[in-house]
C-alpha cells in the first residue's frame, strides 16, 4: 500500500512483505522511542517542578523559619534512610530465604501456594499495613519485646530506651516496612533463583556439593544481581513509603539510633503527609524542598545499586 504513496522517481519499488516488515519495524521503533522519551520527559518535569517550587526556601529570609533548611531536613533525611535501611536489613535475609525455599526446597504444591500468598501480600495497600502496625503490632511489641530489649540489650545505643509504651517507634515502623517490601524482594529473588541454569546446578552437584553448597556455588552467584535489583526496588519503596510510617511513628525533631523510644526522627515522606495540610506559603516550599532531597537520595541509591550489581562477573552473561 505504501507503494502508491511513493512519489514517482522516488524510492524504488520493493517487495510488499519487506515493506510491511519495515513498516512494522518503524512503528515499533517509534513506539519504543516515544515511550523512552516520555519517561525522560516525565522525570525532567518532576525534577523541574521540585526545583522551581523548592527554590524560594533557599532564598528565604533567615528570619522566616526558626531554623535553617539543613537543620530542618537533616533529621528527616536521617530518619528516612534509617527506617529504610532497618527494613531492608530485616527483609532481605528473610526474602532470600523464602525465595530459596520456594525455588529449591519446598515440594511443588507448597511452593506454589506460598508464592501465591507472598504475591498477595504485595497487593495490600500501605494504609492497611499502617493500621495493622498501629493496632496489632505496636501493642504486642511494646508489651513484650521492647521492655525486654531495654532490660537485656539496653547497653546498645539502639535499645537504650526508655521503651515506648505505645509502641509507636522506629522499630515498629521498620518491621512494617520490612513486611511491605518482603514480597517484591522475594518475588524477584525467586524468579532469578528459578532461572539458574540446570547446567550449573549439576556442575556443582557432580563435584560432590550438598544441596546447600550447590546453592552457594551456583544459585546465589547467578542470582546475585537480580537479588540486588529486588533489594533496591524494596529499598526504594521503603524510602518513599508515606502512609504506614505517618500512622505508626511518633515523630520528634531529633537524630537518634534508638529504635524503641517515643522520640523518633520522622521520614521525609511521612513528614510531608503530616505537615502538608497545615502548611501555607513558604512552609509548602520547604516541604517540597525536602521532597527534592528524597528524590536525590533515591537517585543516589539506584546509582550505588547499579554499581554493586555490575561489579564482579555477572552470572547472567555466562
Amino acid at each position: 500500500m505504501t507503494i502508491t504513496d511513493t512519489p514517482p522517481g522516488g524510492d524504488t519499488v520493493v517487495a510488499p512483505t519487506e515493506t510491511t516488515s519495515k513498516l512494522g519495524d518503524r512503528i515499533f521503533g517509534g513506539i519504543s522511542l516515544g515511550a523512552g522519551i516520555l519517561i525522560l520527559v516525565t522525570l525532567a518535569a518532576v525534577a523541574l517542578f521540585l526545583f522551581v517550587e523548592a527554590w524560594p526556601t533557599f532564598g528565604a529570609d533567615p528570619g522566616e523559619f526558626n531554623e535553617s533548611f539543613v537543620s530542618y531536613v537533616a533529621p528527616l533525611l536521617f530518619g528516612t534512610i534509617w527506617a529504610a535501611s532497618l527494613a531492608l536489613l530485616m527483609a532481605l535475609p528473610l526474602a532470600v530465604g523464602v525465595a530459596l525455599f520456594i525455588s529449591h526446597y519446598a515440594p511443588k504444591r507448597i511452593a506454589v501456594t506460598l508464592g501465591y500468598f507472598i504475591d498477595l501480600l504485595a497487593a495490600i495497600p500501605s494504609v492497611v499495613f499502617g493500621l495493622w502496625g498501629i493496632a496489632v503490632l505496636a501493642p504486642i511489641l511494646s508489651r513484650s519485646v521492647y521492655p525486654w530489649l531495654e532490660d537485656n540489650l539496653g547497653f546498645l545505643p539502639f535499645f537504650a530506651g526508655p521503651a515506648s509504651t505505645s509502641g509507636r517507634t522506629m522499630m515498629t515502623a521498620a518491621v512494617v516496612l520490612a513486611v511491605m517490601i518482603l514480597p517484591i524482594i522475594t518475588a524477584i529473588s525467586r524468579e532469578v533463583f528459578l532461572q539458574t541454569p540446570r547446567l550449573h546446578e549439576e556442575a556443582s552437584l557432580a563435584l560432590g556439593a550438598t544441596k546447600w553448597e550447590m546453592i552457594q556455588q551456583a544459585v546465589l552467584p547467578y542470582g546475585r544481581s537480580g537479588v540486588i535489583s529486588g533489594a533496591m526496588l524494596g529499598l526504594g519503596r521503603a524510602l518513599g513509603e508515606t502512609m504506614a510510617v505517618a500512622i505508626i511513628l511518633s515523630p520528634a525533631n531529633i537524630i537518634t539510633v534508638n529504635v524503641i523510644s517515643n522520640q523518633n526522627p520522622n521520614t521525609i515522606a511521612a513528614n510531608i503527609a503530616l505537615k502538608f495540610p497545615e502548611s501555607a506559603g513558604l512552609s509548602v516550599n520547604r516541604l517540597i524542598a525536602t521532597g527534592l532531597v528524597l528524590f536525590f537520595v533515591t537517585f543516589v541509591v539506584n546509582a550505588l545499586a547499579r554499581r554493586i550489581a555490575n561489579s564482579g562477573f555477572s552470572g547472567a552473561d555466562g
Partner: protein
Amino acid sequence: MTESVDTPISDVAVAALDAEIGLGNRIVVENLNIYYGDFLAVRDVNMVIEPRSVTALIGPSGCGKSTFIRSLNRMHEVIDGARVEGSVYVDGEDLYGPGVDPVAVRRKVGMVFQRPNPFPTMSIADNVLAGKRLNSRRINKSEAEDLVEKSLRGANLWEEVKDRLDKPGSGLSGGQQQRLCIARAIAVEPEILLMDEPCSALDPISTLAIEQLMNELKSTYTIVIVTHNMQQAARVSSRTAFFTIDGTGQPGYVVEMDDTDVMFSNPKQQSTIDYVTGRFG
C-alpha cells in the same frame, strides 16, 4: 541359582580384591533398572567396567546412554522422580547400598557434561578449585596454586591460560571451557571420570585435544565416555558397550559389550553390526 546370577557376584569379589591390591576401581553393574517416575528408561544392565582404561558407550540417541552414565555417580536421582533399582559396585561397595551418601559418591566419581559448564561467576582458578573448596574449605594459597597448576596441566590447558587465571572461565573457547571442566573434575582426585559426549559441542581440533587428554588420563583414572561418534569410540576406548532401543517408549538396553576392536570388526549381534556399519539410524 543360575550361572548368570553367580557370575556378577564373583565379579564384585574380584573387583574388591583388585582395588585392595591397587589395581584400580573396577565398576560392576548388576541388574540395573533406571526409571524416570514410572517410565523405565534403561533395563537390566549387567556390566563390568575395567579400571584404568577407557570404556565407550555407544548407541542411537534416546537409548539411555546419558541416563545410564548418570546412574554411575548417582547424578540420575537429582531429577525429580528419577530412581534406580539394582546395584553399582565400586571397590566392592554398592553405590546404591543403604546409608551410602550420594554426595560422597560424587566426590569419588567425577563427571564431565555434554555442554561445557564452568561456573560463569568464577575465575578460571576458582573454577578449578570449586570442588576442592567443598571438601576442605581451608586450603592455603600455595597449596591452591599448586593444585590449580597441576589440574590445568593434567587437562592440557595450563599453557593456554596460565597468564589469565583470574579471568572468568566463560571467556574461554568451547574446547578450552571443556578442558577447564575436566581440570575441575580431576582437581578433586576422583577415581572414576564419567564423560557424557564431552566433544559433541566442540570443533575437530578441540575434540582432538580432548581425545589426547583421555589417552593420558586413562593411566590414572577409570574413564567411561558416551559418544555418538563411532570413530571416536574406536580411537579412544579399549572396551565398548552398545546400547539400543526397540522403539520410543521402550526401555533401552545393552546389546553387547566387548573389546573395542572386536565390536567394530567382528561383533556377535546383528544389530551391533548394523549400527557400527552405519545401516542403523
